[in-house]
């Protein structure tokens, strides 16, 4: 089996678990919604301020909610010795990483679609300006986020895992995603979609670095 086929099998397994468990629908999405309401309440009802901060709040909600998705993705491996089973399976360790990243990316994209609509409704963010640039920002940002989260999600499943360590590690590493994603979103929603190119380029660079790094070093995190 090639690496891509193995990754696809892995991703299909994770998505099947997700479809049966409906964790994203039942917990992650409501959490993102709660964050958005809290942001709105903390900034007050002024329309201009909310519109200006909407791209940032949108990405913050996605970033924080994604932490739950990564935890969930590895939680299921911690049960009933599933991780040992994965290690014994005749497949490349890189496929575990790529498959998990792909499965989480699909879930995050679905989550983002809803969150974007919520932000458009709650904060008055206009989506019509440059839909292609907006979609590209979310697609590229999600790939990078899925890569960094799936690489380190396995640490969250250690026997002595402390809840704070995973976000402490992932959120600073994901700073370029936050900056570039927010900037590209702000440009795309204010009719300057053409200027988002360099930010999208930065996202591509981040994705490439973390996909490559994850493929190379993920095996070291698993072997025991």
């Amino acid at each position: 089996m090639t690496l891509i086929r193995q990754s696809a099998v892995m991703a299909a397994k994770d998505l099947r678990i997700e479809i049966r468990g409906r964790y994203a629908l039942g917990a992650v999405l409501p959490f993102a919604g709660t964050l958005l309401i809290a942001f709105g309440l903390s900034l007050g009802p002024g329309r201009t301020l909310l519109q200006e901060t909407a791209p940032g709040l949108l990405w913050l909600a996605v970033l924080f909610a994604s932490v739950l998705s990564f935890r969930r993705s590895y939680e299921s491996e911690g049960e009933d010795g599933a991780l040992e089973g994965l290690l014994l399976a005749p497949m490349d360790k890189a496929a575990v990483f790529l498959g998990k990243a792909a499965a989480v990316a699909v879930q995050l994209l679905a989550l983002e679609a809803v969150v974007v609509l919520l932000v458009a409704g709650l904060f008055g963010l206009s989506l019509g300006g440059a839909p292609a640039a907006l979609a590209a920002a979310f697609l590229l940002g999600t790939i990078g986020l899925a890569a960094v989260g799936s690489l380190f999600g396995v640490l969250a499943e250690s026997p002595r895992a402390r809840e704070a360590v995973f976000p402490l590690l992932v959120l600073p590493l994901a700073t370029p995603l936050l900056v570039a994603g927010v900037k590209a979103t702000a440009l795309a929603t204010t009719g300057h979609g053409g200027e988002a190119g360099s930010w999208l380029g930065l996202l591509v660079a981040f994705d490439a670095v973390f996909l490559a790094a994850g493929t190379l070093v993920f095996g070291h995190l698993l072997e025991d």
Partner: protein
Amino acid sequence: MRGPVHSAERALGKLTARRGERVLGLLTVVALSASAILSLIVSPPDADQKNAARLLYIHVPSAWLAYLSFAVVFVASVAYLRTRKIRWDRLAAASAEVGVLFTALAIALGSIWGKPVWGTWWTWDPRLTTTAILLLIYVGYLAVRKLPDSPARRARWAAVVGIVGFVDVPIVHLSVTWWRSLHQGATIRLLGRSTIAPMMLAALLVGVASFTLLYLYLVTLRLRVGRLEERVMAEALSPRLGQPVEMLVEQADEPGEVTVGG
């Protein structure tokens, strides 16, 4: 590939012997004293900033140590994953701890300097922001080191974080530089003049050199503490229970290496 790694390990072993450690400690004290005299007495006060500019002589060396330490963490992490020798993991751990200390120091000193000179404790300058994120990444690195129970697993996890964290830093810097430049034009320049007085430059170079010695000394100490920790742990787990810990620590002073896992 085996050649350079091997000779680097031998040099490391010599440097961390007790005698090398004492000599290094002495050199560090002399160099730091020289640096203090140069920067506080010999070097003239700055034309604009008066005595506040003297912070340069400890702020810049601290920032230099921050980047030096994390580069060492990166190299040691790669070397650990290649050789699986626990001494590389100890080096990465020691360097990361010293690095976090000096990163925090650089930020604190910069903040103290910024108040009289820029009129603010903090500005979202790309270099400041990158340094703050750098600090968070390596605090995360140290937190990961506390997670696993087995030393071998801890070493592997830490090495991966040490590699990925370092690779991420240029992207972080690029992103915050762009983020800032799209907001407003020129960033505040610390030293307006393009030239620096020869005496100030000399004091700065001595400061950098003495801080580098301090770094080597602290890492050396930390490496020995790491060896002792491992030895005490190994002794505690061995069948020779019942010996007082002091005896074990004395035994640990003997040359030699405990290898765990790998």
